[in-house]
């Protein structure tokens, strides 16, 4: 390596380090914790004592502890640096139940010891993971939900104060964690009867006569078809997935309509509708939803259930006109 080459290489290395350092500091902040400030205060007291008494041994020990503090900052950085929160998502939850976010974490070059990942809010539980060494890891975070709708959480962060707790490394997930919160289901007999009364198939209330006996034939499976109706026999024979069609299915179709619920409070109304959707889904009936301004045609299956519940979750409450 020629000298010029070496100088060039060193300059490049230093400038890239500086750039990386600045970028790193901007993105993942490394700041003293309150214990870090207390430590600084302690060092100040020791230094003042050493200066006052002109005590070189005191100077030496004070500077040794100063060094420990500074080096611990680098250890914090090296341990956690490079740990990245990649993405996070949560399955929809019912209001009042905790939403479970799954956050993907990617390990950095360091050991990744004692990294705490949490959503910065008072209702979220903290999760501490150790050794984020593997390239990818999923962490489950719970966050309480209060009301239906789209919930946007506080920033999701990965923090670490390892090893001494004097400095906190902090990385923030880009963007927000979002979760769809279904209304809290409210199951009331009044709503049940009201809905049934309005539905075209009046007799459908009776469980024994759900019409599942009138087998009509098999249809090719479409995503969203209810699982109990899949013809497992056919699938066992290797014919593929088929859904059983029953003559009674059409007759059991219910339309869950906004206007049919005998309830004044719109939120309670939505909760009741939610309960009805769940009940209908449990029974495997086909059901549709009729809300002011939008209607969902009858159907069945998980996707349909989600569609209905999402419509309820997002339903805007306006002044009754």
């Amino acid at each position, binding site marked *: 390596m020629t000298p010029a080459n070496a100088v060039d*290489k*060193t300059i490049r*290395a*230093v400038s890239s*380090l500086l750039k990386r350092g600045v970028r790193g500091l901007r993105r993942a902040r490394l700041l003293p914790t309150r*214990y870090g400030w*207390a*430590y600084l205060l*302690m060092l100040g*007291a*020791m230094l003042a004592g*050493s*200066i006052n*008494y*002109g*005590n*070189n*041994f*005191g*100077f*030496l*020990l*004070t*500077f*040794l*502890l*100063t*060094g*420990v503090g*500074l*080096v*611990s*900052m*680098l*250890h914090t*950085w*090296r341990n956690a640096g490079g740990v990245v929160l990649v993405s996070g998502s949560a399955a929809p939850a019912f209001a009042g139940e905790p939403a479970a976010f799954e956050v993907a974490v990617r390990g950095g*070059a360091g050991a990744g*010891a*004692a990294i705490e990942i949490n959503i910065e809010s008072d209702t979220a539980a903290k999760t*501490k993971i*150790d050794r984020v060494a593997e390239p990818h890891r999923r962490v489950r975070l719970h966050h309480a939900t209060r009301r239906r709708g789209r919930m946007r959480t506080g920033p999701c962060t990965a923090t670490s*104060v*390892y*090893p*001494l*707790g004097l400095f906190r490394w902090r990385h923030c997930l880009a963007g927000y964690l979002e979760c769809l919160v279904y209304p809290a289901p409210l199951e009331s007999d009044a709503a049940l009867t009201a809905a049934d009364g309005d539905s075209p198939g009046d007799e459908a209330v009776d469980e024994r006569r759900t019409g599942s006996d009138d087998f009509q034939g098999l249809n090719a499976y479409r995503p969203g078809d209810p699982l109990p109706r899949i013809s497992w026999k056919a699938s066992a024979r290797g014919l593929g997935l088929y859904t059983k069609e029953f003559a009674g299915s059409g007759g059991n179709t219910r339309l869950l309509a906004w206007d049919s619920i005998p309830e004044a409070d719109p939120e309670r109304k939505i909760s009741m509708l939610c309960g009805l959707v769940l009940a209908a889904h449990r029974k495997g009936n086909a059901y549709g939803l009729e809300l002011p301004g939008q209607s969902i045609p009858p159907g069945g299956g998980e996707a349909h259930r989600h569609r209905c519940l999402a419509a309820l979750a997002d339903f805007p409450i306006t002044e009754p006109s």
Partner: protein
Amino acid sequence: MTQSSAVFHIPALIVALAVNLVPHIGWIPWWVVLGCCAGWLVLWHRIRTGRPVAAPRVRRLLTLIGILAVLVGTGGALDRYTAVALLWILATVKLMEIETRRDVVVGVFLAYFLGVSVVFFSSSLTAGLYVPIGLWVTTAVLVRLHDAGGGWRRPLKISLKLLVQALPVAAVLFLFFPRVHGGLWGLGGAGQAVSGFSDVLSPGTVSGLVPSREVAFRVEFHSPVPDIQKLYWRGLTFDIFDGRSWRRSGERFRMQNPVSGGRPVHYTIAMEPHGERWLFVLDLPVEARGRLAVYSDFTLMKWRKTERKFIYTVQSRVDYRSAGVSWRGESDPRQLPAHGNPRTRSLAQQLRRKAESPAEIVDLGLRFLQEGGFRYTLNPPLLGDDPIDSLLFKVRQGYCEHYASAFAFLMRAAGIPARLVGGYLGAEPNPYDDYWLVRQLHAHAWVEVWLPHSGWTRRDPTLVVEPNRILQGAAAALPPEERDNLRPWRGRLGTLSDLWGQVQLGWDAAENRWDRWILGYSPARQRSILGRLGLEIDGAASKAVLLLIAAGICGLLAVFYRYGFQRFFRDSPDDEVQRAYWIFCARLARAGLLRRPHEGPLDFALRITGERPDLAEEVNTIVWDYIRLRYANRGGPEALRLLRRRVRRFRPRRKRRAFSPHRLNHVNT
């Protein structure tokens, strides 16, 4: 953090505090040590058996009792002993109220503080080696608090790593941090004055020091070491005789006329604290700086008493003439008590009649001692009412102080100005380092006479009586039975004691280095060391610059620690693969082929193959090399080198528009 998990750290804190307590033993009251230990044992036991630690009422009571006990026990003096003892009591009570993580951290900080507070008591090398062990364990407690495992091995390892990495930072800060005031010796050593001379010299003063091997001071010569028979270390002079003991008169001035003579000897002395103002110098001092002054009797004085170790650098001439220095104005160096010792007085008159010059009187006096059959011994018989007559004419046995006293008396009686000098004779080289030890056993007393042509001149009567005193030291010059009394263990242990002596010398050498480099780091030394590095410090601005330099060096150290030597000059293989790919993309971008953010290497290669068939082959080779290295982790350094060479040679050119395939297609249709 729940209470139980914070309590889990109490035993760890107890261990850390116990380690930090050890060097305090002997400094703080013993019952504080016992009280703390008892408190910790009870605490530990209660935690192990799962019982509640201590009720708030009990804690308050303990705090009150502890504070009162310390205040009463130390007599209410608000000194460092009381302060540190109080801190120990508070730390012990604090342990009992640990409930949260915050309390644990407070406990750790207290342990740090107590560990460091040893500097109030001792700055010895032993403390210098021990205190970092305490800091190590304390830091391990802090690491353990944040460690998921809860074991000891990882925290101890990490804490050791932190301390070792902190050493260079500490060294840089120590070197560069501007020192404000001088004579910077720790508080350590105060109250530990080594016994030595006092300002009264009576029979038994010097011989009482001989059994002691304690170090009086250490000397480092910067110029060639003088002959051993010239190593007379002058401490103080005695010019008033009351018939039994010699005293110092208070009348002396700063020296006006410097001493002339041979080449000066340049040396540095590290004086052990002896609680007095006088310092020891090689006969005769020429020049002293700072807060030191050479007086007209050639003694070196300090402004304040030497309560701590003290380092000073002086120049002396061992071959000298001091004719220019007169004793006029001081107390009369011919003064004698009116009565007593008649035989010595008549001997003096004889000498005076016989001799023709003062110098001859001195020589005749020495010859009297040489030929009189005198014996050198530590334990002469009692001398009676006329001690000098008794020594010279009856018992004829004595130690250096007896002979010096008798000779000075004789000279004064003969009309020659004379005085006693107390100090040390000889030195012991340390084989492990380049310095000499002067111990209490080197203590000596000799006489100075004033002669018209040469001024104050040293005459050592002991040498005439026992010439071995100089060459072999005091112990060797003594009769064999007295020598064995001095070191009764020596004969029995033999080689082992020699070995022990060597170990002591080695340790002394290490301690001397510690004293000179660490404890003796003064503003003057800082200026000289930094001056050698080309940094001038004067004024506040340059001190700020010093701090900036220190911060800069620490920053460089930080970069070095963060990336390590390997990574500083050489990236990890993974990064090199990535960098090769970036270069490849950058070159394509320059050729107008920008990789879109969502495009992986394969998609990108596919698009380029479509857009630029002329580059397809090269691009696909590179992309597949990259994929193999980056994702399949195959190939090793050989493949990496190949990829880098291919990327280096890959120079795609921007396609001229006329030959764009899109355009051609367009024309065709």
